[in-house]
């Protein structure tokens, strides 16, 4: 049954490559959803069905939908993709590509130096996760709650549509 894993992995890699190369934002976001779904399948195979569900609901659902809202609000479309076309040339690709490749090679090498162990998958059910979450990790949960609260307030504050506002020092520079 390993084949499911390989297929999902291949889908994830291909769709991710497409995400970072697409010029139209909506296309990129659609490939991103595909990538998330593929990863969700892998989660399921690794015996984490609860997390797989969360991956679909939150990542592929909520977060990507947020992105799409923003794309709609900012009315990004053909002009953006045209712009992207001019921006994405070989010279911009080259150095980041090399760097990322080095990073990848190193990661792969590091993984290979570890003893190759075979996982015997045992499902860790949501109950075990919940017990652990509200047991030893309670502080973490509280902190995450605070972070989310800060995120909500921050987003609500920063996202306000204000008239163009310069910092007072910059304003002096302008004059």
């Amino acid at each position, binding site marked *: 049954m390993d084949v499911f894993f390989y297929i999902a992995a291949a889908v994830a890699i291909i769709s991710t490559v497409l995400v970072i190369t697409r010029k139209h934002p909506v296309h990129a976001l659609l490939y991103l959803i595909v990538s998330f779904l593929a990863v969700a399948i892998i989660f399921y195979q690794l015996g984490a069905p609860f997390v797989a569900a969360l991956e679909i609901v939150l990542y592929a659902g909520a977060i990507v939908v947020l992105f799409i809202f923003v794309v709609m609000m900012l009315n990004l479309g053909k002009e953006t993709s045209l712009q992207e076309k001019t921006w994405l040339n070989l010279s911009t690709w080259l150095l980041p590509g090399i*760097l*990322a490749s*080095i*990073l990848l090679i*190193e990661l792969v090498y590091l993984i290979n130096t570890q003893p190759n162990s075979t996982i015997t998958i045992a499902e860790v059910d949501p109950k075990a996760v919940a017990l652990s979450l509200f047991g030893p990790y309670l502080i973490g949960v509280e902190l995450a709650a605070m972070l989310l609260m800060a995120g909500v307030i921050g987003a609500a504050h920063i996202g306000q549509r204000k008239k163009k506002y310069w910092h007072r020092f910059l304003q002096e520079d302008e004059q």
Partner: protein
Amino acid sequence: MENLIWLLPALPLFGFLLLAFLGSKFNREAIAFIGIGSVSLATIVSLYLAINFISSPPENGFISQTLWQWMQVNNFKVTITFHYDALSLVFVFVITFVGALIHLYSTEFMAHDEYYSRFFAYLNLFVCSMLILVLADNLVLLYLGWEGVGLCSYLLIGFWYKNIKNGIAAQKAFIITRIGDTSLAIGMFLLFKEFGTLTISEISQQAVSHSSSSITLIALLLFGGAVGKSAQLPLQTWLPDAMAGPSPVSALIHAATMVTAGVYLLARMHTIFELSPAAMHVVAAVGAATLLIAATSALAQKDIKRVLAYSTISQLGYMFLALGVGAWWAAIFHFMIHAFFKALLFLGAGTIIEAQHHEHNMFNMGGLKDKLPTVFKTFVIGSAALAALPLISAGFYSKDAIIWYSLTAQNGSPLLWLVAIIGSFITALYTTRMVVLTFYGTSKTSLSYQPGVRMHIPLIILAFLSVFAGFIELPHNFGHVTLFSGFVGKALPTTLLKIEPSESLFQLIAAIVCLVGILLGWKLYSSNREKVIDLESGGLFKFFFNGWYFDNLYKVLFQQPYFFLARINKNDIVDKSNDVIVGISSWLSNQLATSQTGSMRWYVMGIIAGAIMILTLQLVL
């Protein structure tokens, strides 16, 4: 009775607090009432205490009152305790009585001053500090009062602070007396090291059976404190400049009371000094040198207040001479008489200056004899006391005792006697000069002001005392009244004589010298004023006029080297090494700042490169 001692410093303190915090709320009458009232009440308390003390003397010669414990560190314990004995009594009486008279005088003298309440607040604080000083049972409390009077002196010299010269004079007084204060503090530390206590009576008890080589050092350090406060050689230069303050301040602080704190300190610590003949000799020598230098300087001054300032230094020199030769009671007696006549002279001088459009120069005065009759009469009486006019002035009896003892007492010597007698001659000379220049001759200016009754009363009372206070102590060959020495002798050791020549002969010499001085002065100065100016234009007089150039000497010795050092170290040499570190980090920061391109992609690249580096480290290691 002993429950009343605390009232002495508490009443002026209360007056000070009231005036300092609520002074702006009161009108002038109320301010004057509080200012005089607090000191007058203290005077009444002090008189009551004195009468009680004299009529029923306590068994062991003193009364003490402990208010509370100030501090305690291990076995070092300081209490707020007042010690009231015959010596304190004399000082308390003079401080409160003369203080009250000067307060009364000030209400008129300062009547038109803008800062009326500030003036009385400072005066009250001064009286409070001075009383703490003379009532203190231990040296720490004494030091509190000592510093308190120094502070008030500073505040009052610079009272008219809007004129920068007054501020400089105040700072000079404060800094120079600080040198003495430091010496006193070190002396106190050594005392504590030797005896383990700073309570004066305990030190006195232990000192008798204590032999240590450091006693002389301690005595000299304590004397150093007295030198600063009492403007003796070599720290005398601040007192003439201190005349920048209002005249009542000069009268109270820089003549009658504060400057005698040094005399008090030595008299209070007499057990220490008695153990060290060397220190006693130093005290006597310094006193003699000071009295001569100051007397000659007074002879050449033009400013009437500076004449009096130098004469104060000179008279303080007499007191130290007396202390040095071991004539304890004579020093205290001269202190009391001096307080009366010098306060009188300063108040008189203040009135004259006020009446003459703030003219200080005696050569621009003259002919005031008929214009200010009361001031003239009292001033002449005060001058007679200063010049020690034989028989009728109090100054004669106190100064004659000192001159006599400078020859005959334990540490006396013919040389000291000679200096004292020459000083007496010069004193008579410059006193006559002052009186003649001020009151005789032709009138130069019209009077701007006629002093009122509140100025006259203190003058008359002090003049009365300047004559009659001397009669409480008469030489044994002449009446032999020993009220004062008998009384103060309870707190001070008796004066031992080593030789006893005929006292009458020496009295006669002193009297003749004084009379000759007065007559010579009259002859010299009552002639044409131009001649006097000619006479005083010589180099010697210039030397005297500048106070023997002590200020210039200190300028060359201390100020200029200090400024020189400050100038070469202007850029703070030590700080240069720190600047190197600053330079390196600044340079590095500039180098790193070039990586701040503001391009977010470069930052991300940097993060990735960093990640690669960390992973590489893991691979390699």
